């Protein structure tokens, strides 16, 4: 359930990138110099960093590392004659 919620959050952020509501707007100039559309996407990047923290904190695939570390040492990849 938690993973589904996180996937939905990523999907929602993907959609929020299409901010048609600021498409034709230059003003207000946030802080006096940032056009609103540019400010939105700057804030969007901060929101993404927040979501990435949540992903790393609550859905980190630690089993991948354990699996890789515990696997026996394998032969290096083979050469042409060893497969079709």
């Amino acid at each position, binding site marked *: 359930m938690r993973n589904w919620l996180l996937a939905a959050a990523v999907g929602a952020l993907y959609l929020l990138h299409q901010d048609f509501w600021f498409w034709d707007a*230059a003003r207000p100039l946030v802080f006096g110099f940032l056009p609103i559309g540019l400010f939105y996407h700057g804030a969007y*990047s*901060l929101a993404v*960093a927040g979501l*990435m923290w949540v992903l*790393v904190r609550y859905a980190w695939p630690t*089993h991948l*590392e354990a699996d890789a570390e515990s696997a026996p040492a*394998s032969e290096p990849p083979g050469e042409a004659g060893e497969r*079709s």
Partner: protein
Amino acid sequence: MIPALVVFLYLGVVLYIGIFAFRRAGGREEAEGYFLANRSLGQYVFLLSLFGTNMTAFTILGSAGHAFSNGVVTYGLMGSSSALVIPVTLYLFGTRVWALGKRFGFMTPVQMYRDRWECGHIGTAIFAVQATLLVPYIVIAVMGGGTTLSAVSGGAVPYWFGGLVVAAVVMSYVFFGGMQGTAWVNTFQTVLFLTFGAAAIVFIGVSIGGFPQALERLADAPETAALLTREHVSPRFFFSYMLIPLSSIMFPHISIFCLTARRMGQFRKTVIFYPLCILAIWLPCTFLGLTANAMTDVPGIESKIEARAVLAAERETLSPAETAELQRAAAGDDVIILMLEHYAPLWLAGLLGAGIMAAVMASDSQILALSTMFTEDVFAYYGGKSRFGSAVQVQTGRVFVVLIALVAYVIALQAPPGIFGIAVQYAFSGFTTLLPLLVAALFWRGSTKWGALAVVVWTAVTMTAIAVLQAAVPPPPPGTVVPVWTVAGVDVVTRTPGGTDVLGYMPVLPMLLGSSLLMVVVSRLTPKPPAATLARYFPVESPLRPGSPR
């Protein structure tokens, strides 16, 4: 000339770092050491180096130039979209590539594909397409080097010599330092352009008396007001551009770099901080490029704005040659450098030029990746390693580094201007189209080598078709399009000033849909790899298997 001397000093420093890494290796000539730094990078070097690898001439010069011509849309197109897509792909795919590399000893993505689908020559086909797509990316770095050195020296260093110097320096430290030297140089470079990027913003802002006045002027002037909005860009184009950052994980230098982490935990900070690094670099570059439109007191910028105005006013009457000449004159790839030259003192312009040069020179990883792929996927795979040994393999990789740098330089001398367009049209779209290879290899048991071949052939055919189309139909003047294929009154394919559109979307959308469909259909019609192979990748309750408990 002082800024150019500072930049040359900087080039000497990065050369030293690369050679220092070579000496530190103590002459050990193992392939894994040279090509992957013995899978030993720590978390900060991993983060900064990975970020630096993705930040190129395209980022600093291309994004500012694009913002100069197109306004704030630049950050949404490639900045904030990358801030989301690249960390997510590192999280989903990068960690799994690392785990498989650790388990099975892979050094390149092609080795993984060959093992996963039990294919030999199809892997070579994947190598060929990846290598072909990577070359333009290396070329833009050489072009950026030529542009930067020429600009910071006020034209005293010609473009051809600047490009030559950059190609030679990058080639040298990759040649000696391998992945370890490249990672250290990238880390140094990332710190440099993060620091000096912030300094550039502050200094230019103070010099022009504050940004608010400049932005008010732009917002009030009819000819520039649109640059503060996205009204000149269609939502379809903007939406499809979001697919471009999917290419990142498919670039061989990024997927190979994923194999260099000491532990998978090194990805954690990279995933979290990547969007913040994007914000710190792309937003200032976009903003400075936009603000350059208000700096009509800078002679070089004024002439660009005049050229753009002539293009817009007389586009119906201009000949193709005149249009091309004006487009060249209006191109904004060097606006940041022109601003620094005009507003910053010489010593600071030199330091900032070095910061820009740091980004421009990020082609090192691509060159090393191409060398790694050649020596592992071709030389070693076809028996070179077992016949001549690991030391000869590394020497072969070094020779290949020299050859790539030379070829990139020769192409850069012939290539047209417009760093941004070249990169996007070829390298990025092509690698995004290849994405189904990685997704299917990691997550879909039912995928087959024939499905993989279909993806590769589709990518090659569509990329060639776009290149032929764009060579045959010259770009129309800004603000116009040329219908190329019309069905029932609907323009399906159009030639635009910046490239090609399909139903208003970037070609990358139908290209990705097509490659995904081909992977599914062809895989369903062809035999699967043996059960033993599938069991290695998708063991029961394996974490590599989608849907397994976490």
